[in-house]
């Protein structure tokens, strides 16, 4: 076993220690907090690179390279509960991605959060998040996975609500926590069921793990009451957890609201890493979901994977259409993230682990880039987030503009050069070949068109035309409450309105530096997963990749690539035609599409009224049930508790009276003489020792009598 596999725990442990130390630090030590967080994650990054190097080129005939370390945690009954970590290509890829993206975002945050008074707390939470996320990635036990998964959820809650004094942020944090919790319940049930069936929660354990052949076969053969295999039931429950965490329909509602958090948080947690954890979960338990799906002939098809595919495809299309009609720069990106996560799920369903994971990795980089870019824009525009009030920023913020454009083209899937093209094309290609239905393929194509369209709209509104934010410069009294979109100012210091010059400005280099690094990755990563050199797929499956340029021109690929290129250009073209040709005159002017089709626009702008639907059904129903429970609790249980409390109080009172008056004072009357002789003690502050001793004597006598009575 390699030393890095043995010491893999160090990767999450370092940020954890940093977080603990920061938590104990004084709030004023801002420099220390940032240095600790960045330093620890930097070392973790180096360790992750070592882990990656160890996993590189190690695959053998027996499948991919895999080293596990398991240890006993505690015993219950006759069984030991084991935890452990695993180093395999999947882990290696994810640790490198998480540490690298995390490191860049940490550095960016130093600039972005510079004026916040809770800078130290911010880095404490960020480090805790990084530790938990890395724990998710390396876990070799579903239980450890679940623990870290919940910690990730907790930090997400803490960071969304970082500006908790703002009611919208507090509400968004709560919403995110509760919504993902619904999914987590499924995961928990799946985990318990899995343990009941296989007797272990370890993924891999030298043949005895729950993802290895023996346990899988057993679960496939065994049926449940509904005629479904046990593996299907467990797989669906586990997938429910992924649906919650990755914002898939119908549990997607929390993710756009989560944009209330600081922008680096949105980039790290709600774009690159945590929301991808759901996708990662599906990839991790893929053997469980794919079992029984026709081994050997290409991509397996099972009930679970079919569900995954449909959910993913629906999410991809649905979220992309909502993104078209949003005006908040971060909300557009949030819906785009939901949509892209749908693509990943679809990729996992139709094409297997490599297809979905490739898009996860490329997306992590270009979406982090876009979010940080939007952060830079927001920072530059004095915390303005409404794209209608931006415009013309390419002159003010050249670096941000260029890097943002790269990210946007990668997301839109601009052909050949950008990574998004290759990873998205691979998903579409796999969807095209899916034997169950062609509809996911068409939905994916439609989603791709919409993606290109809304990103063009966003870039055109933000960077082209003339700057529209200046019209508010004079009037400070702009309403802050408009849908909670524009009120993101730091509560401590208000740098915006009294600024000498209201013009937007480029961000400092501590913020643009990470943008440039991410831009390089947004382009270059695509080259590792082309059909001509499918290194990515080969690495995950443990064989070596060969360069075959001919595959690029083979019929199946070429045709699809041309089709998707066409679609992307159509989206870009339409977007530019509607928004780029003629720029908006002012911030308050209605949108071009709104003028054309107000009804459709309203539907999209209000996100298909899903929130309202939930409000009317789930939340209202929940409120009714809770009201009923409250009444029952208050009158039935509360009454009982109250009664017991009164009883306890009564007994305590009696006891106190006994202790104070009977024991301490009760003998006073009868024992005057003794008390006078012990006048010395009476002068002491309180409590007399004679009654104490008398009580001792009585105690002995009573005990003796009791024992005598019970003597047979």
């Amino acid at each position, binding site marked *: 076993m390699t030393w890095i596999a043995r010491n893999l725990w160090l990767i999450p442990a370092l940020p954890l220690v940093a977080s603990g130390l920061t938590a104990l630090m004084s709030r004023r030590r801002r420099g220390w907090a940032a240095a600790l967080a960045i330093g620890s994650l930097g070392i973790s990054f180096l360790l992750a690179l070592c882990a990656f190097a160890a996993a590189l080129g190690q695959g053998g005939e027996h499948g991919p390279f895999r080293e596990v370390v398991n240890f006993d945690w505690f015993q219950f009954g006759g069984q030991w509960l084991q935890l452990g970590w695993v180093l395999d290509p999947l882990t290696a890829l994810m640790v490198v991605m998480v540490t690298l993206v995390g490191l860049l975002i940490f550095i960016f945050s130093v600039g972005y959060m510079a004026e916040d008074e809770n800078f130290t707390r911010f880095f404490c939470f960020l480090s805790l998040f990084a530790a938990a996320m890395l724990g998710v990635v390396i876990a070799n036990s579903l239980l450890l996975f679940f623990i870290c998964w919940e910690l990730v959820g907790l930090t997400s809650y803490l960071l969304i609500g970082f500006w908790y004094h703002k009611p919208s942020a507090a509400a968004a944090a709560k919403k995110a926590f509760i919504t993902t919790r619904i999914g987590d319940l499924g995961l928990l049930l799946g985990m318990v069921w899995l343990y009941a069936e296989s007797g272990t929660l370890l993924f891999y354990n030298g043949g005895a793990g729950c993802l290895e052949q023996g346990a899988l076969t057993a679960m496939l053969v065994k049926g449940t009451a509904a005629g479904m295999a046990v593996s299907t039931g467990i797989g669906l429950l586990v997938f429910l957890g992924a649906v919650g965490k990755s914002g898939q329909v119908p549990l997607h509602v929390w993710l756009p609201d989560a944009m209330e958090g600081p922008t680096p948080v949105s980039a790290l947690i709600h774009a690159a890493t945590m929301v991808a954890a759901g996708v990662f979960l599906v990839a991790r338990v893929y053997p469980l979901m794919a079992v029984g799906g026709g081994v050997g002939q290409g991509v397996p098809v099972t009930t679970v994977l079919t569900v995954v595919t449909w959910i993913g495809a629906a999410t991809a299309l649905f979220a992309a259409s909502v993104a078209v009609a949003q005006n908040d720069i971060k909300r557009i990106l949030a819906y785009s993230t939901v949509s892209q996560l749908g693509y990943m799920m679809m990729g996992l369903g139709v094409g297997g682990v490599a297809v979905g994971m490739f898009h996860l990795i490329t997306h992590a980089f270009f979406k982090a880039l876009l979010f940080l870019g939007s952060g830079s824009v927001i920072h530059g525009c004095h915390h303005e987030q409404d794209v209608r009030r931006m415009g013309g920023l390419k002159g003010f913020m050249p670096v941000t503009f260029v890097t943002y454009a790269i990210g946007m083209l990668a997301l839109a899937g601009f052909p050949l050069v950008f990574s998004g093209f290759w990873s998205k094309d691979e998903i579409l290609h796999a969807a095209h070949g899916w034997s169950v239905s062609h509809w996911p393929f068409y939905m994916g194509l439609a989603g791709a068109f919409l993606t290109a369209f809304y990103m063009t709209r966003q870039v055109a509104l933000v960077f082209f035309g003339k700057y529209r934010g200046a019209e508010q410069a004079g009037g400070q009294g702009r309403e802050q409450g408009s849908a909670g979109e524009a009120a993101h100012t730091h509560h401590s210091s208000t740098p915006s309105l009294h600024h000498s010059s209201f013009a937007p400005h480029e961000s400092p280099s501590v913020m643009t530096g990470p943008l440039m690094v991410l831009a390089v990755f947004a382009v270059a990563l695509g080259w590792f997963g082309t059909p001509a050199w499918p290194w990515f797929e080969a690495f995950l499956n443990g064989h070596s990749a060969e360069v075959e340029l001919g595959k690029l021109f083979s019929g199946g690929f070429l045709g699809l690539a041309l089709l998707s290129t066409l679609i992307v250009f159509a989206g870009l073209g339409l977007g530019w035609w509607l928004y780029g040709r003629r720029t908006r005159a002012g911030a308050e002017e209605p949108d071009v599409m709104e003028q054309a089709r107000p009804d459709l626009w309203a539907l999209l702008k209000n996100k298909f009224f899903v929130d309202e639907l939930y409000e009317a059904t789930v939340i209202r129903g929940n409120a009714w049930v809770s009201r009923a429970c409250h009444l029952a609790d208050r009158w039935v249980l509360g009454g009982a508790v109250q009664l017991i409390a009164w009883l306890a109080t009564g007994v305590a009172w009696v006891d106190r009276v006994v202790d104070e008056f009977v024991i301490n004072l009760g003998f006073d009357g009868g024992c005057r003489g003794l008390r006078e002789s012990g006048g010395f003690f009476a002068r*002491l502050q309180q409590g007399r020792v004679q009654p104490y001793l008398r009580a*001792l004597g009585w105690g002995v006598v009573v005990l003796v009598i009791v024992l005598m009575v019970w003597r047979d």
Partner: protein
Amino acid sequence: MVSELSYLEILRLALPETALVITALVVLASDLLALRKDSLSVRLGFCASLAVLGCVAAGVLLVMASGAGDVGGGMFVVTPLIRLVKLGVLAMAVPALLVSAQGRFTTHAGEYVALILFAVVGMMFLVSAEDLLMVFVALEMTSLSLYVLTAFHKREVGSAEAALKYFLFGGMSAALALFGFSLLYGLTGSTNLNEMAQGVGVHASDPLLVVALIGVLAGLGFKVAVVPFHLWAPDVYQGAPTPSAALIATGSKVASFFILAKLMMVGLAGSEGSAAWGRYGSGWVLALAIAAAASMILGNLAALAQSSVKRLLAYSAIAHAGYVSLAILSNDSAGLTALLYYVFVYGLATMGAFAVVSVVEQQTGGDRLEDFTGLARRAPVLALGLLVFLLSLAGIPPLAGFFGKFYVFAAAAGAEAGLGLFWLVILGIAMSVVSLYYYLMVLKRAYVQEPGEEVAKFRVNGVATATVAILALAVVILGCFPDWILHRIATALG
């Protein structure tokens, strides 16, 4: 018997105790001869660090020793289990010494530290004793040292009063114990616990035996503070200097509970009786069950009404003595394992709580609940430690106290056929719920209530902070990995 004593063997077995006695003498000598002119803090610091070194040396000697030995037919017995318990006692002594180094209540640094060491030596002899005579001598050695330690706050009249009460109460208990011992000897013709047990079996229905065992119970019940032998505890905890109270509450408890269990389980085997619901039978199990039930009820309820934190801890100690007695009642190796784990983690948490109280007392001049207001602002690390200690005492998972309670209740529930002791378990659980209230009352002061105008931070000495932090860490870690100790106890039990 006496003629066959091998002095070399005694020396070999009692090497850790010898090391402690030598340390105590060195501490006395160096304070009286060399440090006369130095300031009090230097003297206390030097004496305490020397004593800590001595304790560490004794601990190392204990860890390195192996095998078992018995001198004088039960006079001084050493087994792996006994060594483990001694290590537990030493583990309590070290923080007590570190806390005393912060104290400013006496000018007699050397004497104070030396007395702590003598008390610890007494506890270690107590743990090793399997003969009534030796039990009594060791008990008295411990008690006498503790009486003096209680009275050490010479400028404080409360300290003297507490010591006098402690002494009078202790004297009476010792008299009862000696009376019981003499009856036992008269009945069985032996003072060795194992030989005695055979005689006890023969005389199981003799009324004298009842009187004898109640006498023994009084003597040891006084040390562990079970009802009705508890009355000294609140006054002593409150009046004594905090480090003394901490030692009384922890190290002394570890040793006394062990010897109580040994006397009952080994020495009085054959006269257990029964405390199973509806199937009572005369014997030590019944007597202890009554004491345990009364302790759990009285300790927890009386603690509700306290306003002094040290007094509150005293009533909580009485309640905990009740829980621990449950482990003895189960009368098997599972019970003994549970008992040792419980007493050890209870000791750690109580020691930590006293360490925090000691700092608060120095800074605010009192230990009333009001003095803890806003502790989280004024000394965050101490407040966090207090949180860990009190929640562990209340038995909140994943802290060590939870597993302690769990194992004790599990042992008691599984002891008698047909869940006979289940009524005590239910009582214990119900009373644990009550206890949460008064622990949270302290924590509410520390965390929730805003301090008044004076929000000055405490000036906390680094050693005190480190002591609290290490104890808190130990409580958390032992809660997450209870097996670390349980495994050692199980191995030592064989």
